[in-house]
């Protein structure tokens, strides 16, 4: 854990910033894919320190933000049932569904529990054989392996009262969707290091080549991100577009074969809706037929849910890098962490929440005037 200090060293940061300044000759727009990177960038003020030519665009990599409203409404429906213990990671509890969130379900008497591992949910199921225990399985390639392992264990040990509401998403199809958009401004990607630590880098060369865009695998500490920016800008200035690993201490090119094998056993690729963006082909995972007994959507009748997104929320454009959070008229007025319109304002890794929490002083006054209170 000494790494935390080492990767926040101000002297090294200055050196990297100097090098970026010396390299850059014209404007470049880079997208950090992961919400954890967005959070780190804003929390440490990295975007303030980078030269004006380097624009960081915040990508769709917040798993809480992109979980579709329909799935959250299904979670709320299931969690409200008296025979159910609904388990979730903490940051999903405040994400608004249609009209309420999991905290409110708990306030109304629902048995909603925060767990730190899906295996904790499995243990709760073993300890409560007369209750149905449901785990909310969301996230990218990072959280998918332990969730897959948990379903595998449930089947192996015959824990029949355990099921999972699955809404996993995959990064490479999202990159493809973003680059395919006619309005895309992204010229380089800081790929999410922890995703690659599981999946490896094999999915990226084809994307880098097809869209002629450099992809640099990047970590999450401030120096990791500056190094990722340095390498991406260097490629852009040279006119290159290769896949580069700037997070070698955690990422091997082949990823984690054991985790990938577990994913292949438990999940199958499916089309998946991303909140605010829409359906992206092959961008998600669902439980494979072998594990259908543990699929909460099959176990509980939650079909026919009608969803309703707030019309004012533009988080979809934020997630695609088309809009900066403070450029939304509802930002900081109709939409705050206290009363979020969309998930990007709820999740601690959401771009809107990061701007609201850390960057209100820097929002241009003109924007603030446009965003005058409506009530």
């Amino acid at each position: 854990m000494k790494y935390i200090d080492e990767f926040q060293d101000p002297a090294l940061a200055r050196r990297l910033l100097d090098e970026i300044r010396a390299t850059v000759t014209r404007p470049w727009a880079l997208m950090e894919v992961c919400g954890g990177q967005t959070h780190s960038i804003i929390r440490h003020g990295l975007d303030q320190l980078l030269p004006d030519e380097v624009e960081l665009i915040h990508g769709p990599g917040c798993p809480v933000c992109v979980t579709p409203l329909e799935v959250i409404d299904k979670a709320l429906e299931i969690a409200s049932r008296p025979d159910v213990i609904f388990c979730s990671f903490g940051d999903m509890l405040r994400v608004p569904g249609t009209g309420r969130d999991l905290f409110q379900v708990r306030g109304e008497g629902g048995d909603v529990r925060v767990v730190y591992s899906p295996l904790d949910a499995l243990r709760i199921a073993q300890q409560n054989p007369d209750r149905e225990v449901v785990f909310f399985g969301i996230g990218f390639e990072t959280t998918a392996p332990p969730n897959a392992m948990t379903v595998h264990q449930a089947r192996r040990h015959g824990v029949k009262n355990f099921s999972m509401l699955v809404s996993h998403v995959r990064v490479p199809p999202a990159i493809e969707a973003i680059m395919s958009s006619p309005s895309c401004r992204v010229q380089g990607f800081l790929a999410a290091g922890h995703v690659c630590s599981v999946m490896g880098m094999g999915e990226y060369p084809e994307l880098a080549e097809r869209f002629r865009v450099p992809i640099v695998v990047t970590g999450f500490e401030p120096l990791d991100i500056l190094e990722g920016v340095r390498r991406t800008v260097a490629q852009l200035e040279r006119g290159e577009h290769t896949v580069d690993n700037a997070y070698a201490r955690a990422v091997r090119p082949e990823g984690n074969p054991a985790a990938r094998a577990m994913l292949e056993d438990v999940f199958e690729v499916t089309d998946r809706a991303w909140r605010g963006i829409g359906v992206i082909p092959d961008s998600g995972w669902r439980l494979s037929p072998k594990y259908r007994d543990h699929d909460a959507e099959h176990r509980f009748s939650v079909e026919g849910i009608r969803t309703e997104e707030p019309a004012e929320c533009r988080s979809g454009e934020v997630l695609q890098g088309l809009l900066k959070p403070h450029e939304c008229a509802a930002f900081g007025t109709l939409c705050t962490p206290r009363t979020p319109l969309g998930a990007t304002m709820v999740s601690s890794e959401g771009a809107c929440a990061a701007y609201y929490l850390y960057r209100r002083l820097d929002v241009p006054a003109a924007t603030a005037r446009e965003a005058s209170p409506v009530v």
Partner: protein
Amino acid sequence: MSDLDLTSWTCPAPLRDRPRVVMGHGGGGALSAELVQQIFAPAFGGEVLAQMGDAAVLSLGGARLAFSTDSYVVRPLFFPGGSIGDLAVNGTVNDLAMSGARAAYLSCGFILEEGVELETVTRVAEALGAAARTAGVEVATGDTKVVESGHGDGIYVNTAGIGVVPAGVDLRPQRVVPGDVVIVSGAIGVHGVAVMSVREGLEFGVEIESDCAALGGLVDTMLAVTPDLHVLRDPTRGGLAASLNEIAAASGAGVVVRERDVPVPPAVANACAILGLDPMYIANEGKLVAFVPREHADAVLDAMRAHPLGADSAIIGEAVEAHPGMVVARTGLGGTRVVDLPLGEQLPRIC
């Protein structure tokens, strides 16, 4: 940035948007404040309550008394470095100390859940008694209630306390002026991480013990240097961030914190990094934050460092004229960020 109307950033939605109480209403953040301001304060009325300090300062029989109450619902009842008994004494003693008063007497109310072992009750009572003796305060009156099994969480404890505020001492956020120096009495985030480590069964490689302690003696030491301290707060629920925001909001001053100067033990920093939490928002039970006139700051800091409970005291920032009512951190790398009042509870992130 200069002509930004900061008042427009407040949330327009009323509290009653949420028809029921959620856990965040007890988290010491914005939801807690709304509960008090929108329901309790209007219902109770009264000028003293409107002070909204950790303790109320009352004039009674020619003396200035500090009066405070708090309820303790911590789980588990025993944790590394303390127990609910220690907390029930130290929490109320510290609330009084933040008004400059040495606690004199406490009341103690126990709410016991049917089925709790008497041995557990005994251990909590003994811990409470020992903490009271250490703090130099006497438990003068008490009450016991029992609720049916399943209607409590083992043991809840409420304490109330009174003490005398010394002449010449006037600790209020309204006294904070730009130029005041912000001092914390030691490492932050320790208690919250210690409790989390046992409650959630998390292990962080090293055992983290709560900093639970009574701060009356440390405050006496500071007041001996000068009675002209401007405000003290013990940053419990909501952590340092909540205390600084309360002071900034009540005083109208801006507050700047130099992040690198905030003492965060490596074990706390590591635990927070793993869980995606910010040490500034984690609860403390044996620390205080002081706003001190600049001319007294060095002497107060020296006195604090000479006291066992203030050995790691540090100057972490100052009150400023810029961004009134807001707390801003200078990051270790040279950027800035707003440190907001927490909404409710901090939530561990997904990945």
